[in-house]
């Protein structure tokens, strides 16, 4: 891999990175949408899901893409046009920025930041701005309610998310995502086992960050019709949709990196050359595993009310994650 990359000119390298980045975001998104939203949800609800487009409905996403392309681009009459139009892009930007730091192998990464996970947490908050822009720019009370609820919820759940990751960082001794993965293979044990509490808090937090049920107050379908996305149609709605599932994919991948050993598989040296090719596949499998958990919760549970949601974050998850940090630190020092 490295010899090939070194021979390319900078612009060629950039284009290659851009394309690979696009694929890295969109391909898992498509896979997740098909596997979990179309098929798993349908099977859980004792129905079949899309079966017409392609064998077992595999081309349904393509059909949906074509459908959305054809739709009229509606602007609500008194909407703030720039804010309304820019909102989906802001949300997508945060997803693509997140993908930058994901390591797919010892050298298969876009950027190797020393503060990898810190950057990831910071950048994931950018989507809040996008959601609020959507809520405000739609000039609709439903969207506004959805946007405000989202702001409260996403900010509240940032903290448990970050704190749950701190435990992993303490154990690995580095903020660098590659270092965290290699630390897991050095320890010989994936961090999910010593950091099980942290893993659970992480799972709950990303469920909330993705505004999936049971934390989907911003998009409470039976009250707000789709919350901040109500006034969007056609391609703009598709962008939000892609953003939602792409973020799910990326967060699952981050979870896999932090807790499930990233690209490493047991009994194989983590930093060997071959992992550059197998690594991304391994990471994809682990990502699907975590995404499965996310969507399984989504299909089963009703949603929390806003105040119950906030109470869960502030009064329950944050103290728990602080406890986790303290215990991890004690163990790290003592052992």
């Amino acid at each position, binding site marked *: 891999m490295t010899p090939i990359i070194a021979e390319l000119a900078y612009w060629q390298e950039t284009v290659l990175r851009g394309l690979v980045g696009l694929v890295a975001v969109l391909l898992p998104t498509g896979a997740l949408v098909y596997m979990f939203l179309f098929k798993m949800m349908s099977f859980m609800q*004792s129905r079949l899901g899309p079966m017409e487009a392609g064998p077992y409905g595999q081309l349904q996403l393509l059909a949906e893409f074509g459908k959305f392309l054809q739709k009229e681009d509606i602007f609500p009459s008194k909407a703030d046009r720039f804010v309304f139009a820019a909102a989906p892009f802001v949300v997508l930007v945060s997803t693509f920025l997140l993908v930058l730091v994901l390591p797919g192998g010892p050298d298969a990464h876009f950027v190797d930041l020393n503060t990898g996970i810190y950057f990831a947490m910071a950048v994931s908050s950018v989507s809040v701005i996008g959601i609020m822009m959507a809520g405000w720019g739609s000039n609709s009370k439903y969207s506004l309610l959805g946007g405000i609820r989202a702001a409260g919820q996403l900010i509240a759940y940032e903290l448990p998310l970050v704190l749950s990751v701190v435990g992993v960082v303490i154990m690995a001794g580095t903020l660098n995502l590659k270092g965290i993965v290699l630390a897991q293979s050095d320890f010989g044990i994936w961090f999910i086992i010593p950091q099980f509490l942290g893993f659970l808090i992480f799972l709950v937090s990303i469920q909330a960050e993705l505004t999936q049920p049971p934390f989907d107050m911003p998009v409470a379908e*039976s009250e707000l019709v789709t919350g901040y996305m109500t006034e969007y149609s056609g391609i703009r709605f598709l962008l939000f949709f892609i953003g939602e599932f792409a973020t799910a994919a990326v967060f699952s991948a981050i979870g896999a990196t932090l807790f499930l050993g990233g690209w490493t598989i047991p009994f194989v040296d983590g930093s060997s050359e071959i992992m550059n090719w197998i690594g991304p596949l391994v990471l994809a499998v682990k990502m699907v595993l975590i995404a499965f958990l996310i969507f399984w919760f989504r299909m089963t549970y*009703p949603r929390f009310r806003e105040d119950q949601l906030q109470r869960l974050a502030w009064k329950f998850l944050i103290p728990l994650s602080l406890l986790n940090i303290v215990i991890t630190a004690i163990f790290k020092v003592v052992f």
Partner: protein
Amino acid sequence: MSTETTTEVDINDIDEVDQLRYVAARAADARVNIELETEGMTLNIGPQHPATHGTLRIVARLDGERVIQAEPIMGYMHRGYEKLTEVRTYPQVTTLINRIDWVGSFANEVPFILASEELMGVEAPPRAQYIRTALFEMGRIANIMLFLGDMPVQLGGVTPLFYAMRDREFVLNQIESATGGRFHPNFNRIGGVKDDLPAGWIKETKSAMQRVRDFCDEMDDLVTGNEIFQSRCRGVGIIPADVGKAYGLSGANLRGSGVDWDLRRDQPSPLAWKDLDWKVWTHPDGDSFSRFWVRLQEVRESSLMVDQILDGLPAGPIMAKVPRIIKVPAGESYVQTENPLGVMGYYVISKGELTPFRVKIRTASFSNMSITPWLLEGVYVPDIATILASLYFILGDIDR
């Protein structure tokens, strides 16, 4: 809704374009009057909205996430039933009133038929009464299974709805095979029922009832035991028993507040309930969860009742001797029954004609909904969906 403008214009005096302008101006006035209120935000829930089962509009004045005042505005589905019944012959009225509560539809016909039979002095034979009771209870099961699936959807859990729909199909198939219609059987006649039951129906219905019971157990696991569901529903929308009675609440809404009253047991009726061994479920709390829980138990109980009815089905004719042309003698009669949504009653005034003189239709959901302005004060916006879902109304029942 709209405050009166100062000048009254007679709309027939002006020409088309101006008429349209006039109407638009009035409508704009109405909107402005609502939207310019600076205290809190006014949110219009409906008439097209996923939370309202049908075209119901709720105007809610909010302060952040709290409701200051909420008020339902209905009439989008008003079909003028009471006026229409005055020009229908008695057998024709049943086709109309089927559609009042269109989900548990067999139950709508029964009180009217009983009132007419009482005025005529006709009594349907026992077999017909048993068949009526069986279909009545199956209508109840179909109706409330819809509720059991729909309430979690209002709260965000989308999966139980599909199980409810799937298992409800078996009950609807049975109703269809006996009466020819899934939703609008129109099977009652004055003096009995239209037809006898088809061969094999009893066995199939019993297996359908077993499925219903399995479904209820599944709901217990999936929904009532779910902590999120409980935290969303417990303590939300508490209706004290005396307030409920003063508003005329009925059915599971009142039984969920601890009032032990069920017309099937407490009112003498020619239908077969007095011969069955069953139990009335109540719950003392009076919140949304208790209403859900009571209805779940009622479905289970109904399925057991249907089994008993089919076991004890008497032989005999299904129709009493009635003249060919039904002329109900003059008089007034009021019959109420315990319908799936609550207490439904028909006050039939007859002058000895072919058609009724006046029929006052007392529907359950109308009274059930009348408590919402009182109930929705001070709750959170998500609780509006919870409370409306737990009161369980059908638009046709409210609007008639």
